[in-house]
C-alpha cells in the first residue's frame, strides 16, 4: 500500500520479511550470546526459558539467521558491489557524519557506507557460522584446541557485528524517513533524491 502514489518502492515485501527474520534472530542471538559471554548479561538467559534453554536455542537461532542471511546476501549482492564512487564517498564520510550530505557524491541505491557495512556483516557471518559449529558440542566433536580458537573468533566477530548493527540501526534512526522503507517498503521521492540521487534518477526516469 502506498501512502502517496509518488512514493518510491525501496524494498519488496519479500525483502522486508527476509530482513526482519534476520533482524529478529540477530537480536535473539545477540542477547543470548551476550548472556553466555559476560556474567553481567547472564540474566538475559531468563528471556529464553533459563540458562540451559539459552544454550540449546542459541545455535538453532544461529542456523536460522545464517540461512536467511545467505538469502539476503544474494538478494542485495548486486546493489552492494563496491564501485570507485563508493570509495570516494567513504573518503568523505566526515561530511556525512557532520550531517551535510547534500554535497556528497551522488549515490545509487546504497551509499559507500552501507555497502561497506554489508560486506563487514557478511564477513562477520563468515566467521560466526563455522566457529559456531565448532562450539556446538552437543552435535559436533571437534578438538579442544579448535574449540578454543572458535570461542575467541565467535565472540570477537559477534561483538564487531553487534557494533556494526548499532551503526546500522542508528543510521536508520538518524536519517529520517528511512525506517519506513523496512516497515512498508517505500520512501519519499525527496528522501531518495537527497540520500540516493542516482537511484532516484534511475527509478524516476521511467
Amino acid at each position, binding site marked *: 500500500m502506498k501512502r502517496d502514489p*509518488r512514493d518510491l518502492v525501496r524494498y519488496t515485501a519479500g525483502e522486508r520479511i527476509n530482513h526482519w527474520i534476520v533482524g529478529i534472530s540477530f537480536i535473539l542471538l545477540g542477547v543470548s550470546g551476550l548472556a553466555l559471554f*559476560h556474567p553481567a548479561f547472564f540474566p538475559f538467559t531468563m528471556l529464553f526459558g533459563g*540458562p540451559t534453554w539459552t544454550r540449546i536455542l542459541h545455535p538453532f537461532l544461529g542456523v536460522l539467521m545464517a540461512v536467511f542471511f545467505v538469502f539476503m546476501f544474494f538478494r542485495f549482492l548486486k546493489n552492494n558491489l563496491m564501485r570507485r564512487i563508493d570509495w570516494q564517498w567513504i573518503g568523505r564520510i566526515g561530511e556525512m557524519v*557532520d550531517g551535510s550530505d547534500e554535497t556528497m557524491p551522488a549515490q545509487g541505491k546504497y551509499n559507500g557506507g552501507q555497502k561497506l557495512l554489508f560486506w563487514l556483516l557478511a564477513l562477520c557471518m563468515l566467521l560466526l557460522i563455522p566457529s559456531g559449529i565448532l562450539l556446538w*558440542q552437543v552435535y559436533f566433536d571437534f578438538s579442544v584446541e579448535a*574449540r*578454543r580458537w572458535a570461542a575467541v573468533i565467535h565472540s570477537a566477530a559477534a561483538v564487531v557485528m553487534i557494533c556494526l548493527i548499532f*551503526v546500522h540501526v542508528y543510521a536508520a*534512526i538518524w536519517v529520517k524517513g528511512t525506517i519506513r522503507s523496512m516497515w512498508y517498503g517505500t520512501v519519499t521521492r525527496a528522501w531518495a533524491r537527497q540520500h540516493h540521487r542516482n537511484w532516484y534518477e534511475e527509478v524516476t526516469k521511467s
Partner: protein
Amino acid sequence: MASLDIQARSATTTPSPGVRDYPDVAKLIDISKCIGCKACQVACMEWNDLRDVVGENTGSYQNPPDLDAKSWTLMRFYEVEPEPNRLEWLIRKDGCMHCADPGCLAACPSPGAIVKYSNGIVDFNQEHCIGCGYCITGCPFDIPRISQTDHKAYKCSLCSDRVAVGLEPACVKTCPTGAITFGSKPDMIDYAVDRVRDLQGRGFKNAALYDPPGVGGTHVMYVLQHADRPELYGLPQDPTISPLVELWKGVAKPVAIGVMAAVGLTALFHYITRGPNAVSKEIEEDEERKAKEEQQV
C-alpha cells in the same frame, strides 16, 4: 560444603562469601607405588554411584577407554623406554587436578556451576551447568566430560562431600598400596620430598613432585620418577590455561562491553549534537511542486 567456604565461583565477578580460613587440601599420587589395580576406579564408582557401560577391550589394559561422565578417574597405562632397553610401565591415575587457578571455572559462563572451595577443591554443580562444554576448553588437562544423557559436565569432585565431613576421598581410602595419600597441601609436599628422595636413591635422578605452577599449583599432585619428562605419563610439560581462553574470558570481556557501549553512546551523542538527518526543505518543496505539476497534467 558450607556456602561460606567458596573461594571462587564461575561467571561471578564479585567476591564469594569466604571469610573463613580453611587449609588447602591435596591428594598426592605416588606413581612409583601405584600397581594399577584400579581399586580407585571402583571406589569412585561405588561412592558416587556411577556405573559406566561394559565396553570392549581396545587393545589395552586401560578400561574404560577414556574418562567420561560416568568414569571420573581412570588408570592410564604407558609402556615407555626412558633409556634404551629399560622398559618401564608407567601407570597414572588420571582425573581432575583441582588447579589453584582452574581453567574450567574461568571458562564457565554459568554463575556458580563451577566453584572452588577455599580448601582448594574445584567442584561442578551440575544443577547450574548449562552443558555448553566451555569448561572442556578451559581445562589444560582434558578432564571434564559432558554426559550424553543429561548434557551436564562431570568430573572428579575430590569427594568434596566426604572431605567436608572430615573423610578422605574414596580413592584414597581404598588404595591398597598407599600410592594415594591425602592431607593438607603442605603436608603432602613434605611427604613427597621423602618419596622423591627414596626414588632418587633408586636411580631416578629426575624424580620430583608434579605441582605445575602454570595453573597456580594443583590440589592433586604426582610424584613422578621422570619429572623432567611428564609427557611420558601423558601429562603436559608446563600446563597453563590456554592463552586463547585467557583472552576470551579475560580482557575480551571488558573490552567488548566498552566497545559496544562506546558505539552506542557515540550514536546517542551524535544525535543530540548533530540532530536528525532530515530531507532538506528545498528538496521537499521541489518534490511537492513536481507532484502538483503532475497532478495538473
